[in-house]
């Protein structure tokens, strides 16, 4: 997967309103990209719920979270609405998984690995992490370890 010190590759994700989300949208802020396998799956549900609960603390560290999956924007919106999660969702639906591949987090099964990437305001990756298995849920403490470093 993409490693710390590497500038983010060129990419285009889709926002919920259909507009593009590109590296320009990461500039000037610290971003946490949360790559998750599937909307509505049990572990992804727990993961987004947990991170949502910590949003104030992430904001206090100056970090903005984004959920990234290969689900269509409508599915992501329904997922977030069902959970009551406000973390912005970004879709890597078409061409499917292209952004996940660019970040080196595309599972051979056709979905994102469960991975976390922190991008600095300069567009350079500051930290990255991939769970040993898509079924493993990385604790929020790991993100805070990286943000507090």
């Amino acid at each position: 997967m993409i490693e710390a010190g590497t500038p983010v590759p060129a990419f285009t994700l889709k926002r919920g309103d259909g507009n593009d989300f590109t590296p320009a949208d990461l500039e000037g802020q610290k971003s946490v990209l949360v790559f998750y396998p599937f909307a509505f799956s049990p572990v992804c549900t727990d993961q987004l719920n947990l991170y949502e609960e910590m949003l104030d603390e992430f904001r206090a560290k100056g970090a903005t979270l984004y959920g990234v999956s290969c689900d269509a924007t409508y599915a992501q919106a329904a997922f977030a609405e069902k959970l009551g999660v406000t973390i912005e969702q970004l879709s890597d639906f078409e061409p499917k998984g292209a952004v996940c591949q660019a970040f080196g987090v595309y599972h051979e099964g056709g979905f994102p690995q469960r991975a976390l990437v922190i991008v600095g305001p300069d567009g350079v990756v500051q930290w990255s992490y991939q769970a040993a298995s898509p079924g493993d849920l990385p604790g929020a403490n790991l993100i805070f370890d990286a943000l507090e470093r």
Partner: protein
Amino acid sequence: MAELGSAPVPAPGDEDHRRGPAPGPDTPLIIVYADFECPYCAATELRLRELPLHAVFRHFPVRSSHPRAWPAACAAEAAASQGRFWEMHDALFDDQARLADPHLWARAHELGLDLERFDAERRDPATAERVKRDFRSGVRAGVVTTPTLFEWRDGAATRVDAAELMARLGGT
């Protein structure tokens, strides 16, 4: 803002909610991180009550899927300030379908609490901070979902599977 990076599970202390026989070779000290609106927590809690163990309860409410988790946690803390934490704890887990404010008041009434004090204290920011303290300690220890159980032994916490614990202690 307290740091939130990784840290061990805090040792059980006087400020924790605890019940059961004194910890010993046959009565493990079990720390439970749980959410009053989580059905898996309720199922686990019902079984834990029957086991010979020393229980420590810590809050881990997650509001997005469980919108009444925080009000319920704060209600338990407000009951605690009148010495009735475990009674409220059990009453909440016993009927998760009724966690709206009137249901919380009804439980407080049934427990004989001073209702005005109960209602003021459950809304007090200091009460939410008490709940958050537990939640943060869980986050730092890598808790990601509920219920999460740890066994405290020899000065350290080890994660323990609820089913394994029940089998070990003779539960069902």
